[in-house]
């Protein structure tokens, strides 16, 4: 085991789990956010059907990310959770509520009951997305630590920057949801989603620019990383790629491609995530706790790595299989009742 760099392996695994969560649960949360726009019952049924088989699997990555952090980076877990306490609790409650609303809207006995659960679904989805954005912003702007404890206050996570991140993530998830629906639906709903995707895409691009310009101001280390030599070699392709993907995105929308807008949005997310990684690495909790500081001892990390190496590929295979089984367009017939 001595030849393996366990903290970096685990940091990469957890980063992948969190990215998987953002990409996968992002589009189904986005479908929930779009409930505010799509008010027709038939449309809502189609929208929910499009994510019904997979939403719950998507959320499992959150448990792997959070549980994994406790298991192998307990110090980071012990600092981040208290620092972001209200948004973490808010996110968990929103996800529980939303998950239940999702199931119960099918079992509701009356029209009113169904409307109420629909409202809960939209609200829970939006609140979960907002909390995740706030949490991301709160982590990026830095967490005050003394010794091995969070040393900030109750409201530290609430700043103009974190609110901007929260809004950006809600918009981003809504765009993922809209482009997912372009892929998985047809007819009027698809056309409206295409229209919404154009506007959401423009809004998201603007927000990405603002957040990207703001982030290096937060921390001199971020600034050095982005604009100093040789970091700029690594960082300059990111905005260029974002712009290129933007071209693909709008061309795809204009030519009525079905999958391109969704894929382009996914690539945007991956690029932003890579940008975050470039800013933060090798820190785990900026500005003071690095990946190595936070790491559990090698004997703990190695113990769990054995299980992860065996079980993660099986879980991935299962997820892939589920998406394959449920490929294709969803429930057009639901328009006609």
């Amino acid at each position, binding site marked *: 085991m001595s030849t393996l760099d366990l903290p970096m392996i685990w940091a990469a695994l957890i980063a992948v789990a969190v990215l998987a969560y953002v990409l996968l649960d992002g589009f189904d949360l986005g479908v929930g956010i779009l409930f505010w726009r799509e008010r027709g019952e*038939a449309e809502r*049924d189609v929208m*929910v*059907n499009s994510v*019904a*088989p*997979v939403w*719950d*699997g*998507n*959320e*499992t990555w*959150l448990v792997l990310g*959070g*549980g994994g952090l*406790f*298991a*192998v980076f*307990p110090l980071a*877990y*012990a600092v*981040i959770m*208290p620092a972001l*306490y*209200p948004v*973490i609790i*808010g996110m*968990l*409650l929103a996800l*529980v509520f939303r*998950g*239940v609303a999702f199931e119960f809207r*099918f079992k509701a006995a009356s029209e009113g009951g169904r409307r109420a659960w629909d409202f809960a679904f939209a609200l829970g989805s939006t609140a979960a997305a907002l909390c995740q954005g706030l949490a991301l912003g709160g982590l990026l702007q830095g967490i005050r630590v003394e010794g*091995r*404890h*969070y040393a900030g206050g109750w409201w530290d996570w609430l700043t103009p920057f974190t609110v901007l991140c929260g809004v950006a993530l809600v918009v981003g998830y809504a765009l993922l949801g809209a482009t997912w629906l372009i892929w998985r639906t047809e007819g009027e709903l698809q056309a409206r989603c295409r229209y919404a995707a154009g506007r959401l895409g423009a809004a998201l691009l603007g927000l990405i620019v603002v957040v990207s310009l703001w982030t290096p101001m937060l921390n001199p280390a971020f600034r050095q990383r982005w604009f100093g030599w040789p970091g700029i070699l690594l960082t300059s392709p990111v905005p260029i790629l974002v712009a290129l993907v933007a071209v693909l995105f709008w061309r795809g929308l204009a030519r009525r491609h079905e999958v391109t807008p969704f894929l382009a949005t996914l690539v945007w997310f991956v690029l932003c995530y890579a940008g975050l990684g470039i800013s933060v690495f090798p820190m785990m909790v900026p500005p003071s706790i690095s990946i190595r500081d936070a790491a*559990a*001892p090698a*004997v*703990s*990390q190695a*113990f*769990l790595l054995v*299980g*992860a190496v065996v*079980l*993660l590929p*099986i879980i991935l295979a*299962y*997820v892939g*299989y*589920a*998406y394959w*089984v*449920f490929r294709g367009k969803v*429930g*057009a017939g*639901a328009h*006609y*009742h």
Partner: protein
Amino acid sequence: MFGLDAAHLARMQFAFTVGFHIVFPAFSIGLASYLMVLEALWLRTGRAVYHDLFRYWLKIFAVGFAMGVVSGVPMSYQFGTNWGVFADKSGPIVGPLMGYEVLTAFFLEAGFLGIMLFGERRVGRTAHFLATVMVAGGTLFSAFWILVVNSWMQTPAGYSVGANGQYLPADWWAVIFNPSFPYRFVHMVLAAYLSVAFLVGGVGAYHLLRERGGEAVRTMVAMALWMALLATPVQILAGDLHGLNTLDYQPAKVAAMEGDWETPPQGAPGGTGEALVLFGLPDEAAARNRAEIAIPHLGSLILTHSWSGTIKGLKEWPAADRPPVAPVFFAFRVMVGLGFLMLAVGLAGLWLRWRGRLYECRPMHWAMLAMTPAGFLALLSGWTVTEIGRQPFTIYGLLRTADSLSPIGAPGVAVSLAGFVVVYVIVYAAGITILLRMMGRPPLPGESGPPPGAPMRTAGLVPGPAGQLDPATGRSP
């Protein structure tokens, strides 16, 4: 907030969420094994009644299982939100153990539960039975890891203390098989089995009382009573052994369970020994019991298996090192009392079976109906005993509860506690309504399985019907 500090509120929050949660894993552990037995009996005898019962309880299992998962997710974040210092210090040991629980649970739930619920027509009988066995084994595996964590917090072993104050694994074998683990594991699994036995028996009795007892209902009642008869004495024995183990490692907890304040004078054979306090009102300020009813020497017999052996009374510890006495004392009596009631039901069942009146004796059916939640109540009481009895420590003898907290003020913890209460009450009211509705309907000959052609989620925490709507009607199929 009502004179409660952040530590009390954080403990209340953990107790509330884990109390809601633990009922459903217990339900899954017991019911998965029951389903395995039913399917095995069906494969062996070919009698349709076992297949009907299997399908009836399978549908109920799916709902209860989902509620266990939903209520379990917030648990994995609470260690950090409310108990940050505990998470940091115990992380190198507790973290990977919890990680294994998550990974094994995912693996089994993603894989075999989907087959168990929906694969009956697709994979063949043997493969389906193997899936059921894997799910039953998986619930035990999950319980294994969680009880390892809890037992390590009760009787820590196999660790060293790092320079930064963290507890580090020195010997994983000693960590996992720590001194209280085997007793706690056996006691918990039997508790889950008995909880489900009384649930199944109570549902069967309800349908007998409503006079719609077919063969399936009678089989249900008969099986539940066999389980009560056989497992209750074993559980009482296991509890006794667990208690003796606790006496070795956590004597203050046993003293609180017994309401035992004074250590009797050691002396010549024929000393006073320990009385067994049947009832009393522990008064922590005065360090004695009010209105005590006790039987001389019985405490010595039970705890030391001798006529005048003694144990240490609570006064041997400074007041700051004693657990809260009253909750431990009363919860212990509730648990033991329910245990003996369960034994009585099991024996009454044997008597009625011998007289051939098992399915006619209405007072027995009323008693079984009343005892429906008995196992779950006993289980919650038992957890109350062992968790409050561990106070004032989170990791017994190593880390005090007061030193385990995140730096979160009381108002913050109070607000999040209120949030949990509101959301859980809504969610659980809805879920339990669905479960009661399902159990309020008797199993029928030719009981249907979960909707066969319906799309399903296979990737998730909870494989289940995907909830897809029927295009023709726009309704759930």
